[in-house]
C-alpha cells in the first residue's frame, strides 16, 4: 500500500518529519487547506528540535501581521496537484469502495444499503459491484445485525455497520457497549473487533426529535471504542479508510446536513489519523474547538470576528474519543483562551468532557475559564425557528468570543 504524503513546495522538508509517526501503517496527511496557506504566506518553522511534530500541530513562527482572511484559501489553487471534486457522501463511498477492493474481508451491513443504494447514497453502486454477500441488506433489527457484525468481526471479518440514522443505534447499545467495546478486554486480548459503526446523526432540517439525536455523548464513556467525526469530504474519506483498517472498533459520526458538501480531494490513496485533530485556521487570540457541522458555523462566525479584529484559532477536533490533547494543548498554550462549540447537549456532552480534560491538564495556561457552547438540553422541536435556536448559531459564537477576549 502506498499512501502519498501530500506536499506543496517549500513545505516538503517539514513534511518529511511527519512520516515518523508511531504507527507503521498510518501515514499522516496534514490538512491540505493548511498547507497551501503555509507555503504561500509564512515561514514554516523547521520546528523546535526538542518537540515532535504531529500532523496539524505545526509550529508556526508568526510574523507580526495577523491573517487578514477568515478562512484559508480554497482548494482551487495552482500549487495543488490534480485532484477530483466530489460531494461528501461520494467521498465516503469512494473510501468504502477502495477499502472493499483492497481487503476481501470488508463487508457492509445495514438497512437498505444494498439494492436501494443507501438512504444517503453512501453505499450506492456497491451491491452491484460486490454482490449480496458483501453488501448486506438487513431487516430492521439494529440489535441483531449490530450483534452479528460484532460476532463476524470476532472471527476476522471487517464489517462496516450502518445505522440508517445514528439514533436507531440506541437499540443496539447493549451490543456496542458490552460486546463491541469490552470483548477485547474480557477475552484477555484473544479477540479483536475491527468493526466500523457509522451513520448520520445531528440536527437536520426539521426532522423531529427522534431523528435529530447526537449519540456521541452517550457512547463516549464506553471503554474500548474510538469515536471520530468527519466534517469535510477530505477527512470523511480519510477517516473512513483509517477506521476500516483499524483493529479497534471505531464509531464514525457523519452529519445529515453535510452530505452535500463539495471539495476537491487528492487522487492518490490517503488516510487520516484517527486520533488527531485538524487545524482549520491558525490564530493567536482564542482557541475554538469544534467538530462536525459546528465547524461551519464557527468559520462563519470567524469571518465576522476577523472583521472585528479578532484572530481566532479554529481546531476541528475530529477525534472524539480519545481527545487529541497534544494539538489542543499546544493551541491552549499559545492563545490561553478556549471556546468549545459543539452540537451535543450541554449535559454530559463531548464539550463537558473536553472542558474537564482541558481544565485538568492545562489549568495553568488559561487566562479565562473554558467556555462551552452546546445545544440546549431539549428534544429537538419540529418548528423551524425553534430548531434553529436549539443549536449554536454564529451570532452566539461571536458574542462568546468577545466576552472571553475582554
Amino acid at each position, binding site marked *: 500500500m502506498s499512501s502519498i504524503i501530500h506536499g506543496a513546495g517549500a513545505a516538503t522538508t517539514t513534511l518529511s518529519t511527519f512520516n515518523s509517526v508511531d*504507527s507503521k501503517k498510518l501515514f499522516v496527511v496534514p490538512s491540505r487547506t493548511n498547507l497551501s496557506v503555509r507555503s504561500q504566506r509564512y515561514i514554516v518553522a523547521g520546528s523546535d528540535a526538542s*518537540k*515532535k511534530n*504531529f500532523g496539524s500541530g505545526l509550529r508556526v513562527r508568526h510574523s507580526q501581521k495577523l491573517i487578514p482572511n477568515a478562512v484559508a484559501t480554497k482548494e482551487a489553487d495552482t500549487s495543488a496537484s490534480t485532484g477530483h471534486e466530489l460531494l461528501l457522501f461520494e467521498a465516503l463511498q469512494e473510501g468504502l469502495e477502495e477499502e472493499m477492493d483492497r481487503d476481501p474481508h470488508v*463487508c457492509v451491513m445495514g438497512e437498505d444499503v444494498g439494492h436501494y443504494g443507501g438512504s444517503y447514497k453512501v453505499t450506492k453502486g456497491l451491491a452491484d459491484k460486490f454482490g449480496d*454477500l458483501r453488501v*448486506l441488506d*438487513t*431487516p430492521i*433489527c439494529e*440489535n*441483531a*445485525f*449490530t*450483534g*452479528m*457484525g*460484532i*460476532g*463476524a*468481526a*470476532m*472471527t*476476522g*471479518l471487517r464489517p462496516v455497520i450502518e445505522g440508517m440514522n445514528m439514533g436507531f443505534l440506541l437499540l443496539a447499545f*447493549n*451490543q456496542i457497549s*458490552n*460486546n463491541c467495546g469490552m*470483548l*477485547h*478486554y*474480557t*477475552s*484477555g*486480548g*484473544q*479477540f*479483536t473487533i475491527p468493526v466500523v459503526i457509522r451513520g448520520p446523526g445531528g440536527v437536520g432540517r426539521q426532522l423531529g426529535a427522534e431523528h435529530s439525536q447526537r449519540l456521541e455523548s452517550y457512547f463516549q464513556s464506553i*471503554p*474500548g471504542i*474510538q469515536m471520530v467525526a468527519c466534517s469535510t469530504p477530505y477527512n470523511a474519506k480519510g477517516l473512513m479508510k483509517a477506521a476500516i483498517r*483499524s*483493529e*479497534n472498533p471505531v464509531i464514525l459520526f457523519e452529519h445529515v446536513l453535510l452530505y452535500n458538501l463539495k471539495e476537491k480531494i487528492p487522487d492518490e490513496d490517503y488516510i487520516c489519523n484517527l*486520533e488527531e485533530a485538524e487545524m482549520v485556521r491558525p490564530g493567536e487570540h482564542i482557541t475554538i474547538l469544534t467538530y462536525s457541522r459546528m465547524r461551519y458555523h464557527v468559520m462563519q462566525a470567524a469571518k465576522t470576528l476577523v472583521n472585528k479584529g479578532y484572530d481566532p484559532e479554529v481546531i476541528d477536533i475530529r477525534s472524539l*474519543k*480519545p481527545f487529541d*490533547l*497534544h494539538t*489542543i*494543548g499546544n493551541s491552549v498554550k499559545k492563545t490561553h483562551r478556549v471556546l468549545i462549540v459543539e452540537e451535543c447537549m450541554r449535559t454530559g456532552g463531548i464539550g463537558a468532557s473536553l472542558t474537564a480534560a482541558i481544565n485538568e*491538564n*492545562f489549568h495553568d495556561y488559561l487566562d479565562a475559564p473554558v467556555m462551552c457552547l452546546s445545544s440546549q438540553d431539549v428534544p429537538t422541536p419540529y418548528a423551524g425557528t425553534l430548531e434553529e435556536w436549539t443549536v449554536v448559531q454564529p451570532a452566539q459564537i461571536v458574542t462568546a468570543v468577545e466576552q472571553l477576549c475582554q
Partner: protein
Amino acid sequence: MALSRLTSRSNIITRPFSAAFSRLLSTDTTPITIETSLPFTAHLCDPPSRSVESSSQELLDFFRTMALMRRMEIAADSLYKAKLIRGFCHLYDGQEAVAIGMEAAITKKDAIITAYRDHCIFLGRGGSLHEIFSELMGRQAGCSKGKGGSMHFYKKESSFYGGHGIVGAQVPLGCGIAFAQKYNKEEAVTFALYGDGAANQGQLFEALNISALWDLPAILVCENNHYGMGTAEWRASKSPSYYKRGDYVPGLKVDGMDAFAVKQACKFAKQHALEKGPIILEMDTYRYHGHSMSDPGSTYRTRDEISGVRQERDPIERIKKLVLSHDLATEKELKDMEKEIRKEVDDAIAKAKDCPMPEPSELFTNVYVKGFGTESFGPDRKEVKASLP
C-alpha cells in the same frame, strides 16, 4: 470371562496396574450401538433415528469427562464459599450431557458460543483445569488473564467464543459467526446456546430471521433447564415448546440428560445447517445448583424435585450404567477413576492458588489493540498519564 478373572486379580494388585488396565480398555474402538432414552420430537423436519453409534472408548471418555466436569463444578462451589471465587458463579452440574454430547458430534472448527454457564463447555473445548481455576480466582494464568472472570471464558483456537454476561446477546453474535463461516466458505457451523429464560429475548427472533433469510449455518440450542433464575418456565413463556418457536425454522426436542441423544441431535443439526440453513435444538435438561451461587435453588422448587431428577435422570449415572452393562469396567475401576479425577481437580486448584494475581499494568492492556488511549500519554506525548497508586 477373562475380564472377571483379571478384575479379581486387580483387587490385590497395586493401583497403578489397575489404572493401566483400564487405560488398555479405553483404546478399544469396537462399535457399540446405543438407544436413546426417549424419541426425538421434531418440528418441520424428520427426526433422526434413536440408535446412536458409539464405541467403548467413547463411553469411557464420556464418563471420565463428565465426572471431571461434575467434580470441577462442585469444587468451584466450595471455592466460592471459601471466598476465593467472587462475584457471580453459575454452575453447570446436571447439564454436563449437553456439553459432552455436542463436543462428540463436532470438530474444533465448528464454533460454540454460550452465555454465562460456560465452565464445562470451555473444558469440553479443550480448556485446562488450571486455566479454569486460575480465571475463576482472578489469577494471571487464567484463560482471560484474570480479567474476565467466571462469565468470560474464551478459547479462540478451539472456536469457543464465550462466555457472555448479558442474557441473549450472544445469539446475534453467534449468527454473526455463522455468517463469517459462510462468507469464508468454511464447511463449519455455529452452535449458539441460550437458556429458556433468554428464549424470550427479541434479538433471538431478529437473529433467527436473518439467519433463515441468508441461509446461515447457525444452530440455536436452547438449554431448557426449566427455570430462568427464580422464574419457572410456565411463568415466563406462553409457549414452552422452545423448539417450535422458530416457526418457519425447523426444530428438534432432545432429552438433554442423555449424552447420546445430544450427540445424535447435534450431528443431525450440523448436517441440516450446512445444507438447509438454521435449526433450533431444545435440550431438556436440569441444573442441580441454583441459578448462581447466591441462589440456594430451593425457594422456587422443592428438594424432592431436585433429588428426583438426580435419581432418575442423572447423566453420569446413565453412562455409568451403560459402562457396567457393557462390561467395559467394574464399579471399582469407575470409583478409582473418580478418585483420580478428584485428585486431579484438587491439584489444579492448589496450583491455581499459587498463581500470582495480574500485574497492575494489566489494568490498561487490551483495552485497545495498540494499547493506545489508556496507557496513554499526557498532552505533551512524553509522560505516561495513567498511573496507579
